[in-house]
C-alpha cells in the first residue's frame, strides 16, 4: 500500500456514500420531471403573480420551468451545487488538514518523499474522487432522463450542469486545500470554506435583481455558471467554467508552494 492507495482506501466509503446520494437524487428528480411538467400550468399561473425579484431569489424562471430540464435546473441544481461544494470541501480538508489534526504529517514528512510529491499524490487522489462523483452524476442524469423524461430535452444542458458541478467541487476543494494548510485544522477549514460556499451561493441567488448587491454576485462563481441562462440559451458557459478551473489550479499551485516552505508546528 502506497500513499495513493492509502488515500483511496480511507476515502472510499465516503465517496460511495456521496455517489449513492447523488444517484438517488438524480433518480428522484428525473422520475418526477414528467409528472411535474404535465401539471405545471397551475404552478406557472400562480408564479406569474409573484414579483420577478422574488422568483429570481429562488432561482425560478417561468420560461425555463416549462422545459423538462427546468425543474432540475432551478431546484435540483440548488441542492447539487451545495452537495458538490460540501463534498469537495470535506474531502480536501480530510486529505490535507486531517494529517495535521491526527499529527500524522510528522510521520509522512520524514519519509523519503519530497513535500511536492506528497502534495501532488494527495491532489491526484482528490482530483480522481471529484471526477468520479462528477462522472456518476453525468452518467446517471443522462440515463435517468432518457428513461423517465418523455418530452424533448437538451443533453447539452445536462452536460453543462454536470460540468458546473465539477467546477464547483474542484473550486471549493482547492480553497479547502489552501485553508487546510493555513489553519491545519479540519473542522475550522470546513467551517470557513462552507461559509464561503453558502455566502457565494445564496449571495448570488438571493440578491438577484438587487442592484446594490451586484458586487456580491460578481465575486460568486455561481454568477458565471447560471443554470437558468444555460437552459434559455441551450448552451453552457464553457469559457467561464474553464477560467474558474484555472483559478482553482492556481490556488492549488499556491498551496503547494506554501506546503513546500512552511514550518510544521504540531
Amino acid at each position, binding site marked *: 500500500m502506497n500513499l495513493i492507495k492509502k488515500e483511496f482506501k480511507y476515502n472510499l466509503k465516503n465517496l460511495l456514500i456521496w455517489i449513492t446520494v447523488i444517484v438517488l437524487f438524480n433518480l428522484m428528480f428525473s422520475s418526477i420531471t414528467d409528472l411535474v411538467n404535465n401539471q405545471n400550468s397551475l404552478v406557472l399561473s400562480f408564479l406569474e403573480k409573484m414579483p420577478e425579484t422574488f422568483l429570481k431569489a429562488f432561482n425560478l424562471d417561468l420560461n425555463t420551468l416549462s422545459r423538462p430540464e427546468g425543474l432540475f435546473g432551478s431546484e435540483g441544481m440548488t441542492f447539487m451545487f451545495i452537495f458538490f461544494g460540501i463534498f469537495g470541501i470535506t474531502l480536501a480538508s480530510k486529505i490535507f488538514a486531517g494529517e495535521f489534526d491526527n499529527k500524522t504529517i510528522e*510521520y509522512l*514528512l*520524514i519519509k523519503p518523499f519530497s513535500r511536492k510529491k506528497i502534495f501532488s499524490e494527495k491532489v491526484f487522489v482528490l482530483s480522481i474522487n471529484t471526477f468520479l462523483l462528477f462522472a456518476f452524476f453525468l452518467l446517471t442524469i443522462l440515463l435517468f432522463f432518457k428513461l423517465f423524461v418523455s418530452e424533448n430535452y437538451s443533453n447539452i444542458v445536462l452536460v453543462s450542469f454536470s460540468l458546473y458541478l465539477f467546477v464547483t467541487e474542484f473550486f471549493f476543494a482547492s480553497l479547502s486545500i489552501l485553508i487546510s494548510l493555513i489553519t491545519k485544522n479540519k473542522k475550522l477549514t470546513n467551517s470557513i470554506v462552507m461559509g464561503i460556499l453558502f455566502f457565494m451561493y445564496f449571495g448570488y441567488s438571493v440578491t438577484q435583481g438587487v442592484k446594490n448587491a451586484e458586487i456580491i454576485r460578481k465575486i460568486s462563481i455561481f454568477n458565471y455558471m447560471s443554470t437558468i441562462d444555460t437552459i434559455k440559451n441551450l448552451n453552457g458557459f464553457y469559457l467561464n467554467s474553464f477560467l474558474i478551473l484555472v483559478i482553482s489550479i492556481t490556488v492549488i499551485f499556491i498551496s503547494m508552494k506554501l506546503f513546500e516552505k512552511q514550518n*510544521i*508546528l504540531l
Partner: protein
Amino acid sequence: MIIVKNLKKYYGKNRGIEDVSFEINEGEILGLIGPNGAGKTTTIRILTGFLSPDNGKALISNKKMPFEIDLVKENIGYIPGEVNFYGEMRVKEFLEFNRSFYKNIDLNYEKELIKILGIELNKKFKALSLGNKKKVAILQALVHKPKYLILDEPTNGLDPLVQQKFYELILKHKQMGAVILFSSHILSEVEKICDTFAMIKDGKVIKSGTIDSLRDISKKLIYIYDLVFTENLKRFDYKIKENVYIFEIKNNDLKDFLNELVKTEFKDIEIKNPALEDIFLELYK
C-alpha cells in the same frame, strides 16, 4: 556526521532555542539531555526538516537542514516524542505502507524487529497502548537500517524489559556505523548508552562532553533506613530525615560508597535518580 552550530529558533516572541551546538560522528551516540521545554524537540524538528532555524546551521551528511532534507531522508530514522500514526490502519497494513517509501527493505530484519519487540500485527493502531505504539515507532525508524537515527525521548512509555531490548538494538545500529541523536530527560539512560552528551536548558547548551565527564555531574540519591552510622561514611554528603540517612553520591564515587556501606548495618536501602532539574540547579550554583 551531524553538525549543529549556534542554532536559534523563536516562535514569534517565544523562545524555542537560543544557542545550540553539538556534533555527532559515525558510530557515536549523543545524548541530548534537558528538562521539558528546554528546546530538545525544537532542535530535533530543525534536523528533521520540519522547522527552519532563525540562525545557525544544522547539517546532516553536510546537507543543510531543512532545505536539503530530501537528499538525506532515505537515510534518516526518526522516533517522535509523541507517536501518531493512522488510527484506522492495522499494524500489518502500516508496515506495508511504511515499506512503500523505501527502495530496499530487508524483510528478514523487519521480521526480526517484530519478534524482538513483540509487535502485534493484527490490531488497529488506535487500539494499541502507548507502549505498543512506541514499539511500532521504533520499528519504522530502524527497519530501513538508516545511517542517521534521531530519537526524541524514545523510551517514554516502554516497560523496562522492552527498554533493554531497545538499548540493545540502538547499540547494534551504532556498531553498524549509525550516527545517533538520543534525546532524553533521564540522565541514567543517557549514561547507559551514549558516548557523548549535550545538556540543554532554556534553549542553550550549558554543558557538553564525553559521557565520563557526565558521571562527574550525575549522582544517585541513596536512602538508608536504620543505618548504624560509621566514621567512614562521614566523607560522603548526607542529611538525616526522620531516621533516614539520605546520601548524595556522585556516580564516580558509587562503588567506593557501597564498599563502605556493606561494612555497617542497615535495615533497608533505596537508590533513586535525582530529578534532572535538581542537577541543573547544581550546575548553576
